[in-house]
């Protein structure tokens, strides 16, 4: 049984209720904040001044070949190995079921010799079909953004910088379609990685670093190919533009089951986030300095949202409304600046007057104002997951737990066909998670266990069938003749010890919006600029505005949130 300890013993903190926080549409409106994983990673890289040098750069003029970067931290040496190849346009796909890519990569422990390179060369480009070993920490791939790649090269070859309006539409040159870690395909397990590789011992740190390196290589590649095409006239990308170029990402349903399979982890991340906000509200008060920062950040966030280009009408509308509301909020703050005595007033004002998207934007901005005040909470992001049965618990206690923590689940009417119209399943194509409709699709007999609400309901109904006089029996006795309930019972028991519990949603509903799950997790990664392509997958941008590898060693202010269009040659944030 996992040893639970409260994240904080500070009982003064005005933590928001799980009823508010765990609502799925709200979770899908979260913005990145200072403790997002990308930010945690880059603080480490910049503050510890990691050295990142290309040790092998065997590319032809078109940028095809092999590259190895060696990364030296205060603790260890790693290698980032890239295989870049010519890919016909017809084979380029964002889907996880794709078979070939423009670039395949791996992050490894230690230095690379020829034998090791040969081994990686034989396996990394195969991705899921290859086998790597436990010295590999991350396996990933990326494709060119067809819109931007050739355009950027063309500009640079002709001695010009690319037009920022064009870059703003698609803020990257390459786009990842999967980033694997945690023991997949023979790689190092998470427990091994966090013991051996302290530099990446935070959640998804190695994966985020891999994305950072793809971004770095994509920028170097642009310069390289432009020079190869026009050695006499080409120029290199301006640093300000480079910082504005991130790495694209396509995230689909593959990410969704993670949030349901790891509820302890998700609840912990949310608790860290909520603790950050509650601390600020409890211990910080508005003053000239903080109000000034808030104003700047609101304007920056508004500009950032205004600059997002997406074909998705709903997202455009959401962004526009958020811009309007956050500007209204700014007017309110300015009007109240002499009398605003605490941040709770701002939170209350937002919750009464603005939509959820804006409320969460304001919360994120507030955490940016006081980023240094919450950085210590970074150490709380790791948690050991353990969903063990507590066999001694009395059945009536289990029933009370359900009534207290799963009231939301008991409200769904699962007798209505629309409540169970959707089912989740794994496809034989790379086990890709997909959604089916009960009324038209086959495969429901193989559905994944994605509906916690329904299963809690079933468990609760079976408990209610037991006569009251028998509810003092232990859970062990109850489950003995009901093995199908074991997994949900241990989940209920375990999550009952967390502050925030489960994501509140019926994921079998006919109108389920999986995109909220994706956005929730992506916000913890630090991802922004969402471009939903459907209800089931979203393009987004990572590390836009982030420092460059060439910025390592310069003063670092960690203020690259809400990236906006630069003026050329702008200094780093």
């Amino acid at each position, binding site marked *: 049984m996992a040893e639970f300890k409260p994240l904080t013993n500070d009982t003064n903190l005005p933590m928001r209720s799980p009823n508010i926080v765990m609502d799925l549409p709200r979770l899908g409106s979260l913005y990145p904040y200072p403790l997002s994983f990308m930010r945690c990673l880059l603080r480490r890289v910049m503050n510890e001044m990691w050295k990142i040098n290309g040790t092998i750069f065997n590319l032809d003029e078109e940028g095809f070949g092999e590259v190895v970067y060696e990364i030296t931290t205060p603790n260890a040496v790693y290698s980032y190995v890239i295989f870049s190849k010519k890919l016909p346009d017809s084979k380029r796909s964002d889907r996880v079921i794709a078979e070939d890519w423009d670039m395949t990569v791996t992050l490894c422990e230690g230095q690379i010799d020829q034998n090791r390179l040969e081994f990686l060369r034989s396996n990394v480009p195969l991705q899921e079909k290859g086998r790597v070993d*436990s010295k590999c920490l991350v396996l990933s791939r990326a494709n060119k953004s067809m819109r931007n790649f050739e355009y950027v090269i063309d500009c640079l070859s002709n001695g010009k910088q690319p037009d920022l309006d064009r870059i703003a539409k698609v803020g990257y040159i390459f786009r990842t379609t999967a980033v694997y870690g945690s023991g997949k395909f023979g*790689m190092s397990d998470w427990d*091994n990685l966090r013991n051996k590789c302290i530099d990446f011992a935070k959640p998804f740190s190695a994966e985020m670093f891999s994305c950072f390196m793809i971004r770095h290589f994509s920028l170097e590649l642009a310069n390289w190919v432009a020079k190869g095409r026009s050695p006499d006239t080409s120029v290199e990308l301006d640093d300000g533009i480079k910082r504005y170029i991130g790495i694209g990402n396509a995230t*689909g349903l593959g990410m969704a089951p993670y949030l349901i399979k790891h509820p302890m982890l998700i609840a912990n991340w949310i608790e860290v986030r909520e603790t950050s906000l509650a601390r600020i509200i409890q211990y910080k008060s508005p003053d000239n300095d903080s109000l000034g920062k808030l104003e700047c950040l609101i304007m920056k966030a508004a500009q950032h949202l205004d600059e997002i280009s997406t074909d998705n009408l709903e997202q455009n509308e959401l962004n526009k409304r958020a811009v309007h509301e956050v500007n209204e909020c700014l007017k309110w703050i300015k009007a109240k600046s002499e009398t605003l005595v605490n941040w709770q007033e701002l939170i209350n004002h937002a919750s009464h007057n603005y939509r959820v998207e804006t409320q969460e934007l304001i919360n994120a901005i507030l955490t940016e104002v006081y980023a240094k005040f919450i950085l210590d909470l970074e150490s709380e992001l790791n948690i050991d997951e353990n969903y063990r049965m507590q066999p*001694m618990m009395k059945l009536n206690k289990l029933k009370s737990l359900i009534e207290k923590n799963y009231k939301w689940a008991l409200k769904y009417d699962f007798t209505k066909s629309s409540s169970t119209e959707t089912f989740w399943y794994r*496809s034989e194509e790379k086990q890709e998670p997909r959604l*089916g409709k009960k009324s038209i699709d086959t*495969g429901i007999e193989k559905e994944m266990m994605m509906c916690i609400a329904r299963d809690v309901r079933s468990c609760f109904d079976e408990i209610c069938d037991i006569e009251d006089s028998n509810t003092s029996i232990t859970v062990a006795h109850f489950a003995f003749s009901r093995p199908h309930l074991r997994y949900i019972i241990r989940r209920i028991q375990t999550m009952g010890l967390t502050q925030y519990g489960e994501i509140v949603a019926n994921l079998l509903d006919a109108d389920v919006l999986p995109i909220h799950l994706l956005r929730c997790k992506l916000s913890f990664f630090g991802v922004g600029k969402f471009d939903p392509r459907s209800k089931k*997958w979203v393009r987004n941008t990572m590390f836009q505005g982030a420092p460059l590898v060439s910025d390592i060693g310069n003063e670092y202010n960690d203020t690259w949130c809400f990236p906006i269009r630069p003026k050329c040659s702008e200094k780093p944030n």
Partner: protein
Amino acid sequence: MNTMILGVFLLGLSAVKNLINISFNELLSLLSRVFEAIYGHEHDFQEMAQTVFWLESHGHSGTNKLIEKLPELEAIKNIYLPAPSIMKEVITIDCLGASLFANASLICDLAFSEAENNGIAKVIITNAKDSYALLGYLGSVCNKSLSSYLLTDKLSAFISPGSRYPLIYSASSCKKIELTCSKNKSLIDMSFIEGLDPEIDESKQKSFYELALKNGLSISTLNYEKLNLIADRILVPSTDASRLGAGE
């Protein structure tokens, strides 16, 4: 004839040498899918997977044992155990010939529950197979307050409260399987192992685990393929229509 024997031996040797290195996460995920494929959602397939994973990752050849038993597990799937007979601290469970891969967790948790209430509980398990599954569950769950003592015709074992590493002794002549749990170790009759040195101690299992965590687990490619064949039964055939189910 000798040539044939040699040929078979060499073939066997090369088959044994065909090993694949897999991570802990991969094995756990694979085992979960295997048990889900066999038992559906009628049993806690994740716990079953944890049981076999514990055995494999602590040097007890969990996957080999599972592979041997697969035909039987497939044949006798959904046996629901009858209510145990409970007389003071002695619980008797008739497993009706079922495998303890499916039922180890139910039985151990019942023992824990009774031992917590009464100070001690002795579970006598009859008509059961695959008693090492109990070891796998006891090791993986690592009960913090109870000592556990297991006697079977395959092995005997003792686990201290909070320990992940049971001390494993030789098999008893006991025809039944007995599991005794207690808050107080001195209440447990461990006369069978008294004075004996464990055949497998904590340090061996710990070393095995740590090395496997670092380098991966080596299992036979043949077994890996067999397990994947079963695991793939939970996958739904892909069609153009189903590709839309991931969003276009």
